[in-house]
């Protein structure tokens, strides 16, 4: 350890929480178009920024412009976000190069003409510029003052980040310090498989900090996935070979696009300080090509790597990983195409006794036997199993390859063809020199980094149906397979060798063949070749689906995973119903019952994801009776058409959904048709659930099937004719149901799309908050989320018709949904209380997304403006004294309510925290929720910290309820017209099925 780092190690800095108090907040405004095209960065040019467009916002706001970089710095994140949204920025479009498939794996290179006597193989491999947007949502803070730059945040590539920051600020590397969120010095060692957007956020923060001369905090979350997408591919490696009929590789050609694939941070590229050399003639000249190392020997070989433009930084570790991935994937492909054993092919071209010995030892240890594809028949039908091999040779400490480390890997994977989940079940690694390899940790690391944690690794294809924010326990998986992992060492282990320490640091030597070995095992399992990491469940599932559609009709190793689904769609038979009715509806057949899937069929991750899906969909709220067993059904619902009972959705074979195949489950969720072919009523919000993504439905199925089965008695619905005829629902569906899955709006942010997906689909907000027509179908268009009445409660409008006295903001919506309470609006109660309790299961990002989406429907601002807060204070002050004109109401209020709802100058723990003058219900057009609260009280069970109010149904008669309600309206909503017929409404709401009072134990 050098002297310098010793010093830094002791000098612990303040962590992010302490810094936030001193920081200002920055939000960037990216150009509408910017991307890394593989060689250089292109973006729209900044023409001008109209600062007057944000003059209406109160508070101190600074606009930072540097080249094409635009950022806004303000005293709160909400204000900065609002300003960034409002700021008018004019961009000049540049000539856009035709969209290449940079997100896809690179296509085959047409470079070499095939020669007739040889079979020819030619493939390209890619590496993303950003593996993902980050580990978890977090703050990134920069302090750039007095020739010194400190950055707090998350990075896995500190050297590259320092290089970017140095170029950005013109400071020397030694003047730049990186700290982790808790103020510890960041390690200088790169870990993992390349950069993530933590670096982009850090550069954004540093640039803005330098401009405003103080601490600037930037919020890093999935919104940065946009940068990951724009930066596309950092590396392309094209390989081709001629293979003789003997199976020998006669000619081998390796072409690497860049010396190393590491793209600078977006902020640096936009600022123009990156000094990009364009790919002009001088830069592309052949003499600058270097020759990468290959451990194999071929009769004729050509290896070249083009030197990188200046906007790429150098990371030899990452380069090694990329090269090994491409080479080892390619050799595996050649072996498959020429029908050879992949290990034998390598041995054939290896002229290195130590390497050969190592590979043979590892192959023996792992019982490498190509022919025996492990007992495919005994596998559960949805599981595919495969095995892959990869080898690498890396230079030693003095950069000598010959005496370097040889490393041979064999990995076994299991792929769930329904969900795309890949489990690395076994890993055998042999390394002939150096410290013992900790295969357990390697396995975990690879599982997380290459195959996907819940969220971060989906970074390459950010998606609206990702779950978890990465900070949860999703990655802490027990290795269910329980297979041994071994690490043979054919040479004596160097004593006292530097073991890699630190939980997040893995050296390139260890990771380098790891990506290839998984790609090769995946191919063995699925027959699909993945030519660019990461191999997340999402990508694997999409590829499996695409291939099953392609292969439909001809026999394949792969059974189409969703064949059942297509079969019933195609087999629509016609019949007539309801006597003389002349209209014919497609008849839905039953889907054959299956025995309950084994509980261990799905991975812990999938089941955990399913648990979150169930929480977002709040299944248990309807499918559980009060005090009953979760999801066992039986809860009654009063509708204008009669009483409906929820069903048992535990996997009991007789009374639950134990015999439902996934196809049957999916049909119910998307089309409202039960397994036996009968129609379900839209009290079950399949109209909303239809929008759920396949992956989420599959996870939900996995979760429900993994729960304990509960046997129940079936309740018989009591519907009035003709609504009791289930098949009539077919007509209703034709008229009102659109089973299309959710489509994200490309014009909107990822956060918005995530919120829309949750709110429109699983969250089924509109089921309560949109009015329904006479046929019980939700109205759309202007009536979407326009408010409605459910079970005697008003579900207030969630669009611009909101009557809240202080307009809702995104911040207030988030507080309400996350904590059950917004101090400017009140607490969640009535049927909304269990919804908030259910949302407590969801990660913060998801709740923010819902708040963001609803705020957009309301056209609400991000934060609460000073004006809104002042208005609130003014309303509270003017309602502090009651009117004396309504004596009866006043007396009731003073006697029953004031102890908790008025300020007597005594600090009170049990007081209502939101002043009634701000209560949305008192400002509504309808008195229903106020009457409900008086009669039944306010109970937000399972939402901690929310007080509870007793019901007064037994102490007040309808006249008293009306007097009190009228008084409350006059005192606390003086700007609204008095409600009419309050007494009558009180009497109606006392009817048993509307009454929300329930006896406390």
């Amino acid at each position, binding site marked *: 350890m050098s002297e310098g780092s010793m010093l830094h190690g002791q000098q612990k800095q303040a962590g992010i929480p302490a810094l936030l108090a001193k920081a200002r907040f920055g939000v960037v405004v990216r150009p509408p178009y910017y991307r890394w095209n593989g060689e250089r960065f292109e973006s729209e040019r900044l023409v001008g920024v109209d600062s007057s467009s944000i003059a209406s916002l109160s508070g101190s706001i600074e606009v930072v412009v540097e080249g094409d970089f635009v950022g806004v710095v303000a005293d709160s994140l909400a204000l900065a976000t609002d300003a960034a949204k409002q700021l008018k920025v004019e961009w000049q479009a540049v000539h856009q190069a035709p969209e290449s498939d940079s997100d896809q794996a690179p296509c085959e290179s047409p470079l070499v003409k095939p020669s007739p006597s040889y079979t020819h193989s030619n493939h390209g491999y890619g590496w993303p510029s950003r593996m993902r947007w980050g580990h978890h949502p977090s703050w990134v803070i920069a302090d750039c003052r007095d020739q010194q730059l400190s950055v707090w945040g998350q990075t896995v590539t500190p050297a590259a980040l320092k290089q970017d920051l140095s170029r950005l600020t013109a400071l020397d590397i030694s003047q730049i310090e990186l700290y982790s969120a808790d103020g510890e010095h960041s390690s200088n060692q790169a870990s993992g498989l390349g950069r993530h957007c933590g670096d982009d956020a850090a550069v954004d923060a540093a640039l803005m900090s330098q401009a405003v001369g103080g601490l600037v905090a930037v919020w890093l979350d999935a919104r940065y996935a946009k940068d990951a997408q724009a930066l596309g591919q950092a590396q392309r490696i094209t390989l081709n070979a001629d293979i003789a009929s003997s199976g020998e590789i006669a000619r081998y050609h390796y072409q690497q696009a860049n010396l190393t694939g590491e793209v600078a941070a977006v902020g640096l590229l936009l600022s123009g300080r990156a000094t990009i050399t364009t790919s002009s003639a001088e830069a592309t000249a052949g003499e600058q090509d270097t020759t990468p190392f290959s451990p194999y020997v071929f009769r004729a070989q050509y290896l070249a790597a083009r030197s990188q433009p200046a906007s790429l930084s150098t990371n030899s570790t990452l380069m090694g990983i990329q090269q090994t991935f491409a080479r080892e994937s390619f050799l595996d492909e050649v072996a498959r195409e020429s029908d050879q054993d992949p290990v034998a092919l390598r041995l054939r071209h290896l002229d290195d006794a130590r390497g050969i010995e190592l590979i043979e030892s590892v192959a023996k240890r792992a019982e490498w036997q190509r022919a025996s594809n492990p007992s495919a028949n005994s596998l559960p039908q949805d599981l595919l199993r495969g095995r892959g091999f990869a080898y690498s040779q890396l230079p030693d400490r003095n950069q000598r390859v010959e005496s370097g480390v040889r490393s041979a890997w064999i990995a076994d994977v299991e792929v769930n063809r329904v969900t795309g989940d890949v489990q690395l079940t076994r890993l055998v690694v042999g390394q002939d020199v150096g410290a013992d390899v900790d295969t357990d940790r390697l396995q975990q690391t690879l599982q997380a980094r290459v195959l996907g944690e819940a969220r971060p690794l989906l970074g390459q294809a950010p998606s609206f149906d990702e779950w978890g924010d990465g900070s949860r326990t999703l990655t802490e998986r027990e290795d269910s397979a329980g297979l041994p992992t071994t690490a043979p060492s054919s040479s004596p282990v160097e004593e006292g060798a530097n073991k890699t320490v630190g939980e997040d640091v893995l050296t390139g030597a260890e990771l380098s063949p790891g990506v290839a070995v998984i790609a090769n095992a995946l191919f063995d399992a699925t027959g699909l070749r993945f030519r660019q990491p990461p191999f997340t469940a999402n990508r694997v599932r999409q590829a499996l689906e695409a291939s099953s559609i392609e292969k439909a009709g001809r026999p394949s190793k792969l059974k189409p995973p969703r064949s059942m689904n297509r079969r019933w769609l195609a087999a629509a038979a016609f019949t007539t119903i309801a006597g003389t009715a002349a209209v014919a509806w497609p008849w839905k057949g039953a889907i054959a019952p299956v025995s309950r899937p084994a509980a261990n069929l799905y991975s812990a991750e999938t089941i955990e994801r399913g648990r979150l899906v169930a929480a977002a969909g709040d299944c248990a709220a309807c499918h559980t009776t009060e005090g009953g067993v979760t999801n066992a059904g039986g809860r009654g619902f009063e509708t204008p058409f009669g009483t409906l009972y929820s069903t048992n959705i535990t996997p009991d074979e007789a009374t639950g959904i134990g015999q439902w195949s996934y196809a049957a489950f999916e049909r119910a969720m998307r089309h409202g048709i039960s397994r036996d072919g009968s129609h379900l009523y839209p009290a079950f919000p399949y109209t909303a659930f239809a929008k759920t993504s396949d992956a989420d439905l599959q996870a939900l199925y996995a979760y429900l099937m993994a729960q304990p089965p509960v046997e129940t008695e079936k309740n018989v619905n009591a519907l009035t004719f003709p609504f009791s005829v289930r098949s009539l629902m077919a007509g209703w569906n034709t008229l009102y149901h659109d089973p299309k899955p959710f489509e994200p709006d490309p014009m909107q942010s990822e956060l918005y799309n995530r919120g829309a997906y949750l709110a429109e689909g699983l969250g089924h907000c509109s089921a309560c908050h949109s009015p329904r027509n006479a046929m019980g179908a939700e109205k759309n268009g202007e009536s979407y989320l326009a408010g409605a009445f459910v079970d005697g409660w008003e579900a207030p409008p969630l669009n611009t018709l909101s009557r809240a006295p202080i307009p809702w903001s995104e911040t207030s919506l988030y507080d309400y949904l996350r904590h059950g309470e917004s101090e400017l609006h009140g607490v969640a109660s009535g049927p909304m209380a269990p919804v908030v309790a259910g949302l407590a299961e969801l990660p913060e990002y998801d709740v923010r997304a819902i708040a963001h989406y609803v705020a957009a429907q309301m056209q609400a601002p991000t934060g609460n403006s000073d004006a809104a807060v002042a208005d609130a204070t003014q309303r509270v002050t003017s309602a502090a004294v009651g009117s004396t004109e309504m004596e009866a109401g006043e007396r009731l209020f003073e*006697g029953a309510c004031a102890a908790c709802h008025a300020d*007597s*100058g*005594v*600090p009170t*723990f*049990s007081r209502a925290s939101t002043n009634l003058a701000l209560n949305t219900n008192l400002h509504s057009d309808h008195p229903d929720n106020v009457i409900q609260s008086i009669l039944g009280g306010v109970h937000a069970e399972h939402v901690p910290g929310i007080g509870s*109010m007793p019901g007064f149904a037994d102490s007040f008669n309808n006249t008293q309820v009306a007097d009190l309600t009228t008084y409350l309206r006059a005192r606390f909503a003086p700007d609204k017209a008095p409600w009419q017929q309050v007494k009558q409404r009180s009497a109606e709401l006392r009817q048993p099925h509307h009454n929300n009072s329930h006896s406390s134990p």
Partner: protein
Amino acid sequence: MTLKLTINGQERELAVPPQTPLLNVLRNDLALNGPKYGCGLGECGACSVLINGMAARTCVLPVSAAVGHEVTTLDGLSQGGELDPVQQAFIDAQAAQCGYCLNGMIITVRALLNHNTQPSAQQIRTALEHNLCRCGTHVEILQAAERAVILNAAVLQEAPHE
């Protein structure tokens, strides 16, 4: 499910439904009979206790709401054998007829003094406005509260550490 409560400085673990009113738990499970059951609707104040030094009406408060907070009942108000100055003041002023409301009166005055050591006579009246007494002992109660201000100030003087 068990709940962990801190009551009168003691950790208590209780297996009770989380929605049970705190009053029921205090009286029935812990035999702390200082707080009284009055109206059951949070109107009269007889059930008051201190939570984190603030007044709280326990007949309407689910026991789960008290988890993680310091609950002090009338029973736990005296310190080391010494009555709390507010208790002493109510004895000195003989401010009881039937005495049922006195728990709430004492707790409310205690909460007021925790927040404001020198309340005016009007502030005392406002503070006690929502504590009901049905015997008509209001004059004595107000005298007791005013004496409590003086006794409390004396105690603070002795131990000026807040």
